[in-house]
């Protein structure tokens, strides 16, 4: 599964990316996880299965869903999980999104 995170400048999500990579490795899962600035979502279209938005750009959800269409699942990360860097919970969230999509 390819999970892309997006926020403003991709800085705060990149902290999370490292934690999620570690967590996925611990669980023995081969996921590709990375973060981008929100303006680059369109460029990455087709590269990701799941797109998770940082809660600070939750107001862009409707627009992003329109851009992504049915090419991937899109959702906003739970703010508290995001703030506390709860990688396990966010990974589970991404997996659930993926299952629902299929």
């Amino acid at each position, binding site marked *: 599964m390819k999970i892309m995170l997006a926020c403003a400048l991709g*800085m*705060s999500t990149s902290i999370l990316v490292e934690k999620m990579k570690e967590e996925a490795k611990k669980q023995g899962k081969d996921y590709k996880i990375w973060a981008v600035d929100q303006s680059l979502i369109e460029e990455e279209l087709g590269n990701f299965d799941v797109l998770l938005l940082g*809660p600070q750009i939750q107001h862009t959800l409707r627009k992003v869903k329109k851009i992504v269409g049915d090419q991937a699942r899109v959702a906003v990360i739970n*703010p*508290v999980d995001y703030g*506390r860097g709860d990688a396990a919970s966010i990974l589970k969230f991404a997996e659930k999104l993926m299952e629902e999509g299929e």
Partner: protein
Amino acid sequence: MTMSFKDKFTDVMGAIAEKVDDNKYLNSIKTTFTIYMPFIVIGSFALLFNVILTSDKTGLAKFEPFKFLKVIEPAFTAINFATMNTMALAIVFILGMTLGKRNKQNEIICGLVALMSYITVIPQSIKSVVDGVENLIKGLPASGTDASGLFIGMILTILVIEFFTKLTSIDILKIKMPASVPAAITTSFNTLIPLFITLITVSVLSRIFVNVTGLYLNEAIYKVLQSPLESVFQSPGGILFIVFISQLFWLLGIHGGLIVSPIRNPLAIAALAANIAAVEKGLQPTEPITLGFWVTFVVPGGAGLTLCLVIANLIASKREDHRAISKTALIPGIFGISEPVVFGLPLILNPTFAIPFTLGSVVSTAIALLAVEIGFITPNVVDVPFGVPLGISAFLGFGINGVIVQLIILVVGVLFYLPFVLLSNRQYAKEQLERNE
């Protein structure tokens, strides 16, 4: 049933944020400046290299063994010129591409038609006076291509791309080709007429404007629009208002800096360019509000001075959960990242911390403006990008005095948050007591 103030506030601010983000023009302007930002940083660093290395007055070249450095001064000046004095051309091109893409047009064609249109609008000659004789030399004056052209450039590009897009959708303007002609050739012919009409329209109208008013369009728009906006943005009232609005969005967990960036970034970049131009003329820079100022003094340690809350929590909080989140948020905070505290504590619509969270950055901005006012720091010519850690950001942009101002801001911030941490302790103790009863 009436909505509570909190719900209404959330709804209204959320709707505004969505509108701003969804607006094609504001969003494209935001993207354009994000793309161009590295060049601004490089341009201002080129100037810094001149000041500390190649200048024989202030730099290393002052000393005999390093005199040779003087030779490469023009090279750094050239980088600065390329990134600062022609930025309107670059912005127009990128914005044209970005808008063209959103209009589902050929991006490069749109970037180019925006650029060409812009060049037809600005003067194409430079006046030179030699021995009292006026000569017109062909060329683009820097006054037409520098930051003073940003607003006319953005407005013109929006009009041009919309006009061009409209023209490409009109069937009569399409040249009919036999089916055997390759598609690429048909497409290139089909853009030819709309391009021609676009350029003629822009060029003729702008020429009429020059004849009627005696001013070029770029000069006129600078005078009536950009310059007044710059003055408001640079005034304490203007910038404090923008910072406050930005923090109101943050109170809802929405990235406030992102929301205000379509108006903030062009004006902040124009200010940096003006400062650089002043220094090159040997004058004092006069425009305090730049992106470097924003990074260093408006949001040091995170928007709303969240690092100060982190420190205040570590000093005085009796809540284990607050202490734990503050420990993880400490390092990101030094790099200006506030999200762990904002969403982890959380600060979103948190009534206990709402006052310092919305006003912290307002206070820090006021402190820094005061420092500029009394001449303790000078407006910067080196823009530090977001993500440069505390101390270093202040030093690169504002020197050692900048570091002192940043430190004062952080101390004031901690003192501002401390009473609210104590309040939070009391609220928590009361909650625990009620739970145990």
